[in-house]
């Protein structure tokens, strides 16, 4: 029986954001945008969805009079990412078998 892939994570951009954040403690929005090559608008929407799911924490503040958004993965996000990777492994192993 295959585990269902988490629909929140099974999206190109959201998965890319989570994969970036899993390896770092926190990252600025501009860094994520640069690494994912996404537009600011699209990324904002996807970041908001991840935040609503409780997978990431978003901190908005000002630095030198410029808005600064920092994202950080939550324990729930780590758990979800881990489950997603495990489910993915099942699918890939089944595909090879």
């Amino acid at each position: 029986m295959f585990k269902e892939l988490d629909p929140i994570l099974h999206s190109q951009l959201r998965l890319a954001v989570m994969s970036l954040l899993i390896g770092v403690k926190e990252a600025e929005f501009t860094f994520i945008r640069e690494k994912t090559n996404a537009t600011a608008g699209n990324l904002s929407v996807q970041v908001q969805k991840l935040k609503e799911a409780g997978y990431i924490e978003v901190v908005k503040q000002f630095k030198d009079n410029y808005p600064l958004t920092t994202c950080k993965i939550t324990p729930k996000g780590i758990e979800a990412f881990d489950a997603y990777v495990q489910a993915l492994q099942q699918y890939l192993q089944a595909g090879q078998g």
Partner: protein
Amino acid sequence: MPNQNQITEKESLEIITSMIQKAKGTYYETGIGPILWGSVVSFASFVTFLQMKYEFTIGFDVWLLVLFAIIPQIMISMREKKTGRIKKYEDDALDTVWLVFGISLFCLIVYRNAVPSVTTRLIAAEGWQMMKHYTDGSKPDEPLIPFVPSFYSIYIMLYAFPTLVTGLVKKFRPMIYGAILSYGLFVMSCFTTSWNDMLLGTITALLCWLIPGILLRRKYLAQKTAKANV
């Protein structure tokens, strides 16, 4: 990157791998800190070596430069924190290692400056003093201020410690090799004269900080240039 929900499992795996690699391969340290400390410590060690070997003095304590280097270091750290667009899990731990290194270094400086005069006073209170005696009788005996022989060896060993931790945690080979070689220099310094220890200390500062710092700076600038060209 388009937001398409219809991705295959293989594509998912590719995204995960590529993003993790991107985060890993980001050089967010500018290398200026190691370059600064490598330059200052190697310069001060080398000037001290020259002064000891050729018996002259430049008129002031060259190690004061190390003290003054703290000011630009604070400015560099503040600027790097401002421009640092990611923070990795190991960053806080490594900052602590370098802080403890700084405290240990400070304690060692206090020890080196306080212990000889304090010991002289304590043994004088007991009614005796240390004397330098020439075994061939070429010179008369003279009072000797207590000192720890080959003291700079301890510094060499201390320089290698945070460098090795940083190199291993960051998997940055120039620092790993620099620190390992420095431990070798520490062993060597136990068998050499004090002024030679200063020369070995110069090499240690080059191996631990200046060379890795330059390599780090080159990687950082190459990454910045590549980003600008995109």
